[in-house]
């Protein structure tokens, strides 16, 4: 977080990830779930970009598509100067060490039949030519780094608690000295008192190894704590992207405002005095998004134009991007023009 410089490590341009819907007797393609539908942003070196949104908004799909766990439908992803958007999986393989992922559910993402040592060593087996002794040293070093007792190296995942299992997942992601880690809801499955332990660990590791995070979460309070900049997604698109303090202090997009006001505050006086914006209705289906602005069906500030024309995602203030007709100006409509400024 501290040695962050002003260049982008990851550039995402108009990323699209559509999943086909097949139906009928002949399983013909009859439509598509537009899980991610034209997303553009940068992740700066050493920063934590928070990606928030409700379930089904496409935030996890976005994270996975950036790491090319899918064959993307359109757009481009550049990681550390290499365009990987259209690359084949074979060509991607040597690049995998630089980009890693920490998954939400450590119970499901760790093989129950492998020991902790084997789990953490597996990426080393696959991607390096280290000797057995070197690997053993590295595994021990990683276990120390994430705060796991070395004596438990021969145990299986079931013998660990949720927080410790998440540490195993983090150690494994760190094994190949990555530059970029996508953390997909890494604390969502953990108890409140354990969440802080894992978040502090992620922050320590970022400082120690100069890591860049894309932190995907639905927990806005936690994102406010960990992220330097935050992107808010709704129905496959980014509606707002801003530095942390700007986003929480002065949210621009009506959806961001509603989302922030819906977060329960652990303070009885404040929680009851607050003007809460309660959104009506549910999120529309990404297979059949509304015409015009995606949010027009629930927006408290909806205008006629919103139901017809899709708003442009554009920079409205230095470093602040919004896709909303309320802020539509004649100014630059190109969100890629100019990098977001340096945040300290």
């Amino acid at each position, binding site marked *: 977080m501290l040695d962050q410089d002003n260049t982008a490590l990851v550039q995402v341009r108009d990323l699209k990830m559509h999943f086909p819907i097949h139906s009928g007797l002949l399983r013909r393609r009859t439509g598509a779930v537009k899980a991610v539908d034209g997303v553009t942003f940068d992740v700066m070196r050493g920063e934590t970009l928070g990606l928030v949104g409700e379930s089904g908004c496409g935030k996890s799909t976005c994270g996975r598509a950036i790491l090319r766990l899918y064959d993307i439908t359109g757009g481009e992803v550049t990681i550390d100067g290499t365009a990987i958007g259209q690359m084949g999986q074979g060509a991607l393989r040597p690049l995998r060490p630089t980009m890693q992922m920490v998954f939400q559910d450590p119970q499901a993402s760790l093989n129950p039949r492998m020991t902790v040592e084997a789990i953490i060593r597996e990426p080393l087996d696959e991607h390096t030519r280290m000797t057995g002794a070197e690997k053993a040293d590295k595994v021990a070093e990683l276990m120390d780094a994430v705060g796991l007792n070395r004596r438990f190296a021969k145990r299986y995942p079931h013998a660990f608690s949720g927080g410790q299992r998440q540490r195993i997942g983090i150690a494994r992601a760190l094994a190949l000295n990555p530059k970029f880690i996508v953390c997909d809801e890494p604390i969502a499955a953990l*108890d*409140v008192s354990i969440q*802080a332990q894992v978040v502090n660990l992620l922050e320590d590791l970022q400082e120690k190894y100069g890591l860049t995070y894309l932190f995907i979460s639905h927990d806005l309070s936690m994102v*406010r704590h960990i992220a330097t900049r935050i992107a808010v997604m709704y129905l496959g698109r980014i509606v707002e992207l801003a530095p942390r303090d700007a986003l929480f202090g002065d949210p621009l997009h009506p959806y961001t405002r509603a989302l922030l006001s819906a977060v329960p505050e652990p303070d*009885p006086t404040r929680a009851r005095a607050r003007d809460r914006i309660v959104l009506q209705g549910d999120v529309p289906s990404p297979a059949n998004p509304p015409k015009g602005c995606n949010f027009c069906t629930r927006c408290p500030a909806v205008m006629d134009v919103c139901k017809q024309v899709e708003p442009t995602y554009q920079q409205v203030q230095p470093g602040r991007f919004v896709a909303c007709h309320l802020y539509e100006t004649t100014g630059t409509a190109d969100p890629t023009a100019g990098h977001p400024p340096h945040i300290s």
Partner: protein
Amino acid sequence: MPDGAMPLAGAASVLDVRNLKTVFRIRGGEVHAVNDVSFSLKAGELLGVVGESGSGKSVTMMSLLGLLPMPPAEVRGGTVRFEGQDLLQIGAEDLRRVRGGRIGFVFQDPMTSLNPVFTVGMQIMEPLRTHMGLSKTAARARAQELLELVGIPGAKQRLDDYPHQFSGGMRQRVMIAIALACDPQVLIADEPTTALDVTIQAQIIELMLELRQRLGMAVIWITHDLGVIAGIADRVMVMYGGQVVEHAPVKELFANPQHPYTRALLTTIPRISGARAHRLTVIQGQPPIMGAAPTACPFRDRCDVAIPRCAVENPPRFDLGGGHDAACFVAKGAV
């Protein structure tokens, strides 16, 4: 809106639980999930129950309704007074009449608690027909009324839909409609919004508060989210290691937490507004697994103010005045 519903201090309690103990027998031992839990619920109030997974909050509520599979569960002691009878002593048939009738409940996951092969209408009509003996037509009319009450648009048509045709938030509304079917005096809601997104959670909270005001029922709301509790509860009970460690009126609890666990919980969660901590405060270690009845404070290993006495004696709930109590020697000053 949540304010003003604070019941009078002298209001009669509708549910009174004393010294409840529940044990699970597992291979090679026992788990003491609920240890000597006592609380009472006054008419019309909202009691928040906070705790992490394994703290015993759900098992407590399930024990008093006889919803736990026995074995492996075993209720070892205690009394549960409700409408002049002890729910732990009455037979299964009598208990069934209370459950879903005078005491309604809403569970966390509306997908797994609704039956996927029956229409929503049939599931709302079931308690109406079994508990209240309504005819099919009357039950259907009432079911429609209930769906309207919980804010489901097009209630009449939607009675014939199946659960999978509803979104998560709408399913939870259906669950609430079922729970309210027989005009319960007490509603037990176990993490009713945990599986929902924040904007949907806000809708459900608003609905529950409005219904509670309108129907005048008492609510027990179980959650791990202190933020939710702060916004809705009149009183709060904090559970840890199968026991109540602190209990106070909501404003008092958040302004003046006395148990080290409550204090730690409140500092470990990041806030959406106000000053941002540079680093989160951590509660070291893991929650305990109660292999035996507690003989010491269950929080002592993670506590930063523990004294030698905490390791040899389990602190009782000391009355701190003003309806506030905490199970801590240090809070009591009994060092």
